[in-house]
Structures are given as C-alpha cells and as structure tokens.
C-alpha cells in the first residue's frame, strides 16, 4: 500500500504492516487505518502513520524494553473485540510524546495500543485500576551514553 506522509515522504508499506483500528483512537475516531513503519533496523521505535491523513504521524515504542515492570491485564472484553485466541498473537505499543528534547520523551502507559498481529486489528485500550499515567519518561537518566541496552 502506498501511503503519503508529510514527515516521512511517500511510503510503500507491505500489507502485513497495515493495521486497522475499527474504533479509531481516542481523539481520532475517524482514523482507522495506519501503517507501522520501523524507525530503523531492529529499533523498538516505530512510526504509526495514518493511511489517509499525511499529516498524522505518531511515534510509538515497544514499552517492555524500557519499562521492565510494565504489566496489565487485557480484559476478556478487549480480547473478544480483538479476536485474540492466544496472547502470543498480541503486540503492545505505547504512543510516545516528544515535546522539546527527544531525551525527555514520554510514553503513554495507561493507554497502550494493542495489536492482534494475526488479524492486524488494533485498539488503543484505556486501562482501569492501574498505577500508570499518560506520561512516563523513557530516559529518566537522560540518554544512555552507549545508547541502547541491546546488542547490534
């Protein structure tokens, strides 16, 4: 699928990276189709680019790399809506907010984006009874000197 992005240019996105949000996202109810574009090779960061609004781009991140204690329960109702048969088919992303400095970026842990990777149906779920907020710093100590904890 060819997608126009104001920030990323023209993208030719393979079908398996096209994700549908039947309910849109909170604040963006009409945006139901997005492309998940990796920021780099083996990066935990991705762009979530609207398929139809070139101006609408989110930065998302795989939260467990940064918040090792992060956990929540996906309600039966959410599992049903996403047709989740097996939790191994679920991927979790957090929407990141960058204001001034990239190193002060935050992740929204109270409203994770849950993707059924088999069907590519997704939903931004607002969690209840969790100790999380919309803003958790990814780099509370600033950027790691030797950026990244993983191996290249």
């Amino acid at each position: 699928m060819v997608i126009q992005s104001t920030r990323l240019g023209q993208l030719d996105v393979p079908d398996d990276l096209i994700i549908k949000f039947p309910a849109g996202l909170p604040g963006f109810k009409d945006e139901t189709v997005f492309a998940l574009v990796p920021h780099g090779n083996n990066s935990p960061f991705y762009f979530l680019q609207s398929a139809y609004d070139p101006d609408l781009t989110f930065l998302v991140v795989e939260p467990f790399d940064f918040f090792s204690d992060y956990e929540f329960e996906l309600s039966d109702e959410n599992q049903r809506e996403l047709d989740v048969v097996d939790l191994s088919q679920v991927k979790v992303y957090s929407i990141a907010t960058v204001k001034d400095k990239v190193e002060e970026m935050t992740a929204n842990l109270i409203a994770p984006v849950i993707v059924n990777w088999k069907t590519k149906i997704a939903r931004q779920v607002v969690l209840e009874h969790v100790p999380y907020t919309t803003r958790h710093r990814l780099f509370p100590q600033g950027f790691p000197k030797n950026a990244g904890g993983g191996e290249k």
Partner: protein
Amino acid sequence: MLALTRKVGEQIIIGDNIVITVVDVKGDGVRLGIEAPKEIKIYRGEIYQAVVAENQQATMPIDVEQLDVLKDIVKLPPKAQR
C-alpha cells in the same frame, strides 16, 4: 445537556439497555452504579480526556531528523524482555 435531579436509589435509563443508579451521595461525591452491555465502553471522564489530550500532543510536530538520535537504540534481546 439534559440535567435530571435524582435521589439515592433512583435510576436513569438510557436507551433500551443502559441503567444508571445513584448508589450513594457523600459530601460532593456521588457513587453511581452503571449497567450496560459489555460492548459499551465506560470511562471516568478525566482519564479518557487525558488520553485524548495526550494523543493530540503526541502527533508529531517535530522534525523527523531530531529522532535520528534514537537510531542507535536497538531492541533488547528477547530473553531480557518481560
């Protein structure tokens, strides 16, 4: 907006299958019971509004080049995850 006055124990019925009951009133707090079909999402207004506001802030206003510094960050090996 429709505004209704209710007493403790009284109800409001919305449509065919949503029932809101005033369970308790203490000071300036009102405890409501809500019965609704499972597919109806119920949120505390301020939490949902906070997510809406955060999503609106999160739409990328900045230059993508600024994010180049993130390119050195790679995924943790699978073992270290979760």
